[in-house]
């Protein structure tokens, strides 16, 4: 057992009081004074059309309108991994709701009214609303005729003259031989539609260009530094560089990937440059939140698996066709990540995976908690369930037998690291009482079923994504930590405080960790990929160690104590040899220590820390995916559910769900459990309730919470049992690795498999609504 004082303890959240009292400020809570302007955008009513003419005259004439801006003023593209997205649509619009122009006015109502007065003449094109149509479309009416000219990261492989923005191939072993060795080959197809993040805070951005040329953006974002970089990159033709672009990000009302990268914020940045001296606010409505940020991409999965009679998987062939939407600057990397890992956490010697990013005329796809893994795991874990059934093998035993272990080769050729997958499987199996019969409901119209699923996920990030931290002491031995990760609810600020607390012997309640300002706080790539605890945690730990070393140096030099005897505890320097020695930090932490001659040594203690993985590489053979090490590590786990279905109504209730995850070291177990409880419900919602509907013109029919149902307090499982497994991550802070996204990944196959267990019905498309279940039963 460890001897940590603050690590592994459920410290009270450092942001708790702010959030529970309403003191926490979100972007729309900030006060910008009476000079504030408001913007509204003009949206495309068509999924695909040529813009022939824009007439802004009537809008400009409306009293209270300050400016009308169109794509003509900002003919720039931007994007995270591929520059394919526009600040404003240029010659064509590519999805319903895309911003074509914007109005800036003195009040929000005038801005909205004027936006409706902007006249845009379109020539409609045939919209490509599904992957099948998009793959067939060639010629000038492809979604991006200029695809070949777009900048993209070197690990993307666009296909010329097509709607394929990226084609990730994995080829390992010999698939033909693998199927030959198999006793059973099983094939099927699975469909996962699009989903919306539904953070309760809508996107919001305020931009201001000062008269001295400095552009500041206040945004609801997971990615302040990445936003600064993308703003500077896109607005470079206007003379902006990183030096005069600043992003300030207060508290964020939920992210789930939807506030990663840059979406609507670039519009606010561009608009601000047109009204120097005045702040301009752009708030997304709930509707816009649904159709003009990112959506989780839909996927059609074709899976073919070979197994031996003893349950050994010999081969996996999987094609994932992603409906990535109109712009894929972020979403193409979801496709990439899924392609690399679509074996799931299984040892499979022969693998062929094609993960294909297809442009369509639907809203842009992008990052969503789970980053592609929730999507492929639905099909894969449904499929494995059926295979175990066909083999007459217990499905948990089937999974356990094939579960990936340390040293096994991953699909891209690198070895798997030590992990707690087997422990997770065993503990989940025991907790759900897998081997004991299910309860028989007293109501004969009801029936119970159990489902099981494994899951895994690696952070999907560039190989050199980094985190940094500054740490400074104050006179009272309190600490300010400056980092640029975002507190999006997960408890990041608290955990960073705990890490520094452990190194420096200062309790977390004396440590402030605050939201970033890119001018003040050091670099962080983004708060995504479940990498922040691991990556920024390492940076904070190093910053704390740097500060600790300075303290120890000072004590060693001035008091002539051997450094190995020194330790820090409760804001004091203590000695292992002299138990009575105790020097308060307050005695020296700012002003240093005085020598006998009256001169001083030391001074304010300030630490710095940086972390960048230096062992990863995204370079690999494009035809096989072999040769690189694109992923830093995987977080693995297992989950099981017991459901009760009403045969008459199809309604599913959930008596119990169990999820075990190997987070290396739970830095704060309560926060880990919070991720499990919240993530599981978000996952269950994708399979039970949420159902995005488009009409035949590509218009989203249900962009609101009345018609797109996310769970309420009435829709919670009776019991969620979180299980923490801890096989340390060697390069993680105190052995920790991330676990935020993972908790929703197994939810969909859990329900599908439990439904099959209960009724023998296999539903192969999400969501599995009551309506769909009843329809299956009638058939």
């Amino acid at each position, binding site marked *: 057992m460890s001897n940590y004082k603050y690590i592994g303890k459920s410290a009270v959240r450092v*942001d*708790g009081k702010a959030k*529970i009292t*309403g003191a926490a400020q979100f972007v729309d*809570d900030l006060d910008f004074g009476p000079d504030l302007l408001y913007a509204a955008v003009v949206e495309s009513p068509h999924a695909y059309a040529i813009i022939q003419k824009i007439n802004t005259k009537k809008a400009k004439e409306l009293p209270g309108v300050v400016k009308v801006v169109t794509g003509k003023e900002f003919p720039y593209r931007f994007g995270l991994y591929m520059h394919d997205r526009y600040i404003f649509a240029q010659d064509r619009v590519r999805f319903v709701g895309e911003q074509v122009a914007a109005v800036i006015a003195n009040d929000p109502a005038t801005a909205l009214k004027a936006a409706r007065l902007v006249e845009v003449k379109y020539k409609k094109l045939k919209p490509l609303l599904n992957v099948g149509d998009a793959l067939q479309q060639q010629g000038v009416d492809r979604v991006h005729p200029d695809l070949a000219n777009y900048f993209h990261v070197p690990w993307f492989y666009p296909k010329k003259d097509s709607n394929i923005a990226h084609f990730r191939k994995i080829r390992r072993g010999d698939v033909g031989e693998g199927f030959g060795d198999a006793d059973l080959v099983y094939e099927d197809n699975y469909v996962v539609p699009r989903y919306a993040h539904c953070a309760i805070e809508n996107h919001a951005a305020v931009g201001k260009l000062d008269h001295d040329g400095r552009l500041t953006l206040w945004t609801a974002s997971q990615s302040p530094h990445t936003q600064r970089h993308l703003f500077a990159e896109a607005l470079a033709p206007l003379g902006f560089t990183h030096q005069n672009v600043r992003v300030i990000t207060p508290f964020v*009302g*939920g992210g789930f990937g939807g506030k990663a990268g840059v979406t609507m914020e670039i519009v606010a940045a561009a608009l601000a440059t047109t009204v120097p001296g005045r702040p301009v606010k752009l708030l997304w409505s709930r509707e816009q939140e649904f159709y003009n940020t990112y959506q989780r991409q839909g996927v059609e999965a074709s899976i073919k698996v070979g197994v031996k009679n003893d349950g050994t998987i010999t081969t996996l062939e999987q094609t994932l066709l992603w409906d990535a939407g109109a712009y894929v600057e972020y979403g193409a990397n979801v496709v990439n990540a899924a392609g690399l890992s679509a074996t799931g956490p299984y040892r499979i010697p022969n693998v062929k995976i094609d993960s294909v990013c297809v442009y369509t005329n639907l809203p842009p796809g992008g990052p969503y908690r789970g980053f592609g893994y929730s999507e492929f795991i639905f099909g894969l874990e449904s499929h494995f369930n059926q295979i175990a059934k066909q083999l007459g093998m217990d499905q948990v035993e089937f999974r356990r037998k094939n579960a990936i272990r340390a040293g096994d080769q991953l699909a891209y050729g690198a070895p798997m690291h030590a992990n707690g997958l087997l422990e997770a499987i065993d503990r989940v199996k025991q907790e759900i009482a897998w081997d004991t019969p299910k309860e028989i409901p007293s109501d004969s119209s009801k029936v119970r079923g159990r489902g099981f699923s494994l899951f895994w996920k690696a952070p999907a990030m560039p190989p050199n994504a980094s985190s940094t931290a500054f740490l400074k002491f104050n006179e009272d031995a309190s600490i300010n930590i400056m980092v640029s990760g975002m507190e999006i609810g997960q408890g990041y600020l608290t955990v960073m405080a705990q890490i520094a607390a452990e190194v420096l012997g200062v309790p977390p309640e004396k440590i402030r960790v605050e939201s970033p300002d890119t001018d003040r706080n050091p670099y962080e790539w983004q708060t995504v990929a479940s990498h922040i605890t691991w990556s920024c945690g390492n940076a904070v730990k190093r910053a704390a160690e740097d500060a600790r070393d300075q303290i120890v140096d000072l004590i060693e030099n001035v008091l002539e104590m051997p450094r190995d005897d020194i330790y820090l505890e409760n804001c004091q320097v203590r000695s292992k040899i002299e138990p009575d020695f105790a020097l308060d930090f307050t005695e020296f932490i700012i002003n240093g220590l005085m020598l006998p001659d009256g001169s001083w040594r030391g001074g304010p203690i300030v630490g710095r820390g940086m972390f960048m993985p230096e062992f990863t590489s995204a370079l690999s053979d494009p035809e096989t995916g072999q040769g690189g090490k694109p992923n830093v590590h995987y977080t693995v786990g297992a989950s099981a559910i017991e459901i009760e279905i009403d045969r008459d109504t199809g309604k599913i209730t959930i008596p119990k769900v169990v999820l075990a995850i190997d987070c290396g070291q739970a830095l704060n177990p309560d926060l880990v459990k919070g991720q499990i409880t919240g993530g599981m419900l978000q996952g269950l919602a994708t399979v039970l309730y949420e159902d995005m509907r488009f009409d035949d013109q590509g218009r989203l029919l249900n962009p609101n919470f009345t018609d797109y149902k996310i769970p309420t307090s009435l829709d919670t499982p009776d019991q969620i049992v979180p299980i923490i497994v801890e096989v340390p991550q060697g390069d993680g802070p105190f052995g920790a690795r991330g676990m935020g996204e993972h908790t929703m990944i197994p939810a969909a196959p859990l329900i599908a498999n439990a439904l099959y267990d209960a009724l023998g019905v296999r539903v192969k498309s999400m969501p599995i609504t009551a309506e769909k279940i009843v329809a299956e039963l009638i058939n």
Partner: protein
Amino acid sequence: MKVSFTLNSETRWLECQPNQTLLHALREQLGVKSPKCGCERGDCGTCTILLDGKSIKSCLVLACEVEGCEITTLEGLMQSGLTPLQKAFLDQNAFQCGFCAPGMVIAATELLEHNSSPNRGEIEEALAGNLCRCTGYAPIIDAVLDLVDNGGK
């Protein structure tokens, strides 16, 4: 038009347009920022406040309707520091991003005003108009239950 009312025990008045919502009047004109705007159609509950003791969605009420009413927002509940309910929320980590927290605390406060010992089902029912995307609700329900088990302290 001019409207006067009691806001968090103080008499206030404001000039409002006939179509202005109470939510926007509170936030933009009076600077009371704990009610948040999440949907503007009564679905999400982040703008929940107490109007004459009843929890309502302030995005569904017009400012001009509250003449003579008593309005309490989260700010008004804390006149003697954190309420026991807020402390229970803190202890149970009954929030993550915190955006829904003000509305959630208001809704739970109203429940406890009318029913000092609600069971789990009654709590779920009372909070069903307030959406939370982070916590999965269990910690919020547990916080209220915890308070009930401790006799409201």
